[in-house]
């Protein structure tokens, strides 16, 4: 039995080998070894090229600046949400999480909609500032979840004791609360740093010509200059940066893990002083501006037709367009996206379940599969996409076979989420549950039907929902492997945003709204069936 379960790890590992290890190996060989000028020349060229050096520097500093901005917005919001009680707190809590599940391209489109509607000159429509704002929009959720999560479990007694000893509120915070929050703040900061360092869709849409990160340069080297050596070398640089950041994260986590948490102290209370009420109002105002404005602008401008309002941009979505954005009607792209994401979900759920069952059996191979499947998450999507492109340019998955490659690429990114969702549930099934049911008269097969199946199938449903949401919004890897003859919605949105004309913009925004709705509905449904704490990382 256990050997059978261990064998389940073979499928996911073979998948990983074929679609991750081999492609990454291709990137490394192309970037480091295979070059006309001898080994390492692409890398040396990259290092010597001032423009690419600048891209590396920009990648770093925009990530740091984005992280700073995210913390500046996120920490006060986390404080207000975890310490104070006010009407609508739960709604706000949910709203903070919304951007995190939105596809990157949709976020880009939302900011395009917002900045285009602002009086000109207030904020440039393309460039660094829009990127930083969009990154903050995305990642405030990370800060609120990580820091707020700890904050609300923090015993307020030490801070109260400090107040009792005569410290003012600020002093008490600095002395008694901040030191204990530091591990969570640091962990959140590193996660945001990682996300913003590997951010692609947002930068591609909002960067304009001046602001290009490594991810964008990899994409540009590939599709613009057809310089795969440079693209691969840039991927190597990116990979090193990501691994270094992950190393820092692992150290921080180990340190954070040593802190023991108290049960939630339920220390939320209504704001008392005028200062606290102002704090609530200010946090909500910033949040409303940062979160509400882009989404509102997205929806409103998708309905803006000429000088009036209407559904024209939505109605023309199913118009076949020749000499325009896409080879297919945009609605067909939506249908493409849904079928591709559904296929990706099926693959991810199958592989994720197999890996989770193998890992839950406790065998070494199973646990190895669990860990190994996480690797694609730490790799930038663009690097994955480039690796897949380099590996499968020829062979059975090239050309028409790309129909299969796109869902496989998306499954690569979605599978770890499935494992992370199902495995804890599978592990948490108490053996005594099975034993108790067995004593009631259930043979082993019936025990699995009564115990394992219902519990795992709920978790699987949740995992499938997440996998679908991730796949349908995936852009970074998809844009490298999707064929123009069957584009997905995120690819279509990005292309439409890059084309002139109000019609193209309107369609891009309308598609963004539809994609956001699709993702939102799926995540909402998932949220309703979720059991216990899911999606833990």
């Amino acid at each position, binding site marked *: 039995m256990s050997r059978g379960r261990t064998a389940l790890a073979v499928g996911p590992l073979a998948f990983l080998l074929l679609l991750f290890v081999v492609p990454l190996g291709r990137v490394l060989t192309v970037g480091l070894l295979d070059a006309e000028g001898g080994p390492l020349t692409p890398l040396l060229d990259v290092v010597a090229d001032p423009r690419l050096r600048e891209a590396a520097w920009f990648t770093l500093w925009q990530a740091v600046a984005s992280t700073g901005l995210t913390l500046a917005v996120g920490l006060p919001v986390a404080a207000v949400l975890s310490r104070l009680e006010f009407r609508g707190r739960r709604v706000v809590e949910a709203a903070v999480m919304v951007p995190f599940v939105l596809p990157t391209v949709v976020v880009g489109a939302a900011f395009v909609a917002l900045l285009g509607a602002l009086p000109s000159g207030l904020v440039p429509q393309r460039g660094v500032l829009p990127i930083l704002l969009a990154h903050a929009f995305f990642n405030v959720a990370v800060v609120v979840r990580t820091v707020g999560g700890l904050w609300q479990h923090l015993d307020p007694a030490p801070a109260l004791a400090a107040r009792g000893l005569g410290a003012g509120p600020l002093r008490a915070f600095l002395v008694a609360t901040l030191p204990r929050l530091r591990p969570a703040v640091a962990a959140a900061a590193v996660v945001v740093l990682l996300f913003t360092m590997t951010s692609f869709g947002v930068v591609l849409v909002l960067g304009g010509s001046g602001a290009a990160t490594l991810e964008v340069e990899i994409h540009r080297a590939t599709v613009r200059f057809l310089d795969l050596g440079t693209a691969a070398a840039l991927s190597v640089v990116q990979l090193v940066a990501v691994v270094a950041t992950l190393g820092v994260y692992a150290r921080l986590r180990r340190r954070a893990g040593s802190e023991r948490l108290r049960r939630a102290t339920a220390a939320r209370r209504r704001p008392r002083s005028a200062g606290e009420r102002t704090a609530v109002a200010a946090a909500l105002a910033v949040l409303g501006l940062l979160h509400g404005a882009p989404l509102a602008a997205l929806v409103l401008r998708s309905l803006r037709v000429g000088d009036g309002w209407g559904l024209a941009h939505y109605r023309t979505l199913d118009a076949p367009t020749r000499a325009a954005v896409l080879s297919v009607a945009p609605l067909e792209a939506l249908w493409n996206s849904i079928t591709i994401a559904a296929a990706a979900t099926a693959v991810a759920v199958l592989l994720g379940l197999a890996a989770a069952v193998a890992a839950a059996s406790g065998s070494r191979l199973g646990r190895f599969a669990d860990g190994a499947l996480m690797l694609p998450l730490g790799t930038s999507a663009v690097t994955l996409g480039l690796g897949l492109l380099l590996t499968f340019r020829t062979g059975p998955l090239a050309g028409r076979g790309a129909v299969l490659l796109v869902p496989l690429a998306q499954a690569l990114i979605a599978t770890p989420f499935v494992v992370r969702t199902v495995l804890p549930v599978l592990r948490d099934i108490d053996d005594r*549950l099975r034993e*108790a*049911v067995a*004593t*009631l*008269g259930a043979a082993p097969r*019936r025990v699995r039907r009564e115990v394992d199946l*219902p519990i795992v199938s709920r978790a699987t449903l949740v995992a499938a929902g997440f996998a679908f949401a991730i796949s349908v919004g995936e852009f970074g890897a998809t844009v490298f492997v999707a064929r123009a003859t069957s584009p997905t919605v995120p690819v279509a949105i990005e292309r439409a945003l890059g084309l002139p004309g109000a019609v193209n913009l309107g369609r891009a925004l309308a598609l963004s709204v539809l994609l956001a709705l699709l993702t939102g509905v799926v995540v909402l449904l998932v949220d309703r069936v979720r*059991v216990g704490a899911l999606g833990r990382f």
Partner: protein
Amino acid sequence: MLRLSGVTAGYGDAPAVLQDVDLDVAAGEVVALLGPSGSGKSTLLRCVAGLTPLRGGRVDIGGADATDLPVERRGVGLVFQDHALLPHRDVTGNVGLGPRLQGLAASEVASRVAAVLADVGLGHLADRPVDALSGGEQQRVALARALAARPRLLLLDEPYGALDRPLRERLLDELPPLVRAAGAAAVLVTHDQDDALAVADRVAVLLAGRLRQLADPETCWTRPADPDVARFLGAGPLLPVRVRDGVGEGPAGRLPLPDVPDGPARVLLPAARLAFDDGTARGGDVVVPAVLLGSRFAGDHHSVRVEVAGSAHPVRLRRPAPPTAGPGAAVRLRIAASDLVAYPGSATQ
């Protein structure tokens, strides 16, 4: 209803956890399996349920050999400390599981569930999800689920360990009538002597994988089978003596031990039989010196701590009133000579 003969069991290649256990449980009887943690109590329960295979010996349930019967066909009900309720089913769904697995019609299942829930006093919670229940309610549901399958044997593994004392006592009081009404027998695993005393018709003491004593509670506490059992139960002061001609000499003076062979021995003074000697000692009583350590009021009596000379462990005695002397005072205790329990042989420790 249950008979174990020579049961030996263990896990993997490790030494046996259970050695040669014999046990009999009659219908309607509640037997408490008492032992320190690691003594093999739960393993014994798992052997009975068929969850852990035997290395040797035999299990009979309901008069038939069940040694090789798979767990689902043994007709036992199992109740765990952490309830092990199915989270995706409500109270009715959990309780009705056994009858459904037995292939009963829906209406029969429903009526049996209703009856059992009424028995455990949970009729009003039938439609609740189980995670909305309190710990005590969940435990009752677990018991109801086991009972609804009409088991011949109810096995309870530390069932009330996580509950607070008053609730636990109430649930323990309810248990024996339910077992008797179901015509089943019950084995209750516990490490808590109060639990065992509260519920058990007989107590089985398991030490280091061996069944050392199986008897009614009073016998266990006043005539422990051996010094280890006496010590584990805290049955009373255990004094080392040297016996010559039917008299044991030791730190507490001379004790009449008529039938004990000459040589070293240990003598138990069962706490349940000890009393303060207020000059009321009669013929046949033995009086031993002791030191008063302290006293406290315990609700309906005073609990007095004394240490018999030469015994390493203090003992608590009940008195209606506090002692007049203070801590450190010398006192005298009496006990009927026939209540002394002697264990020939030298102390191992």
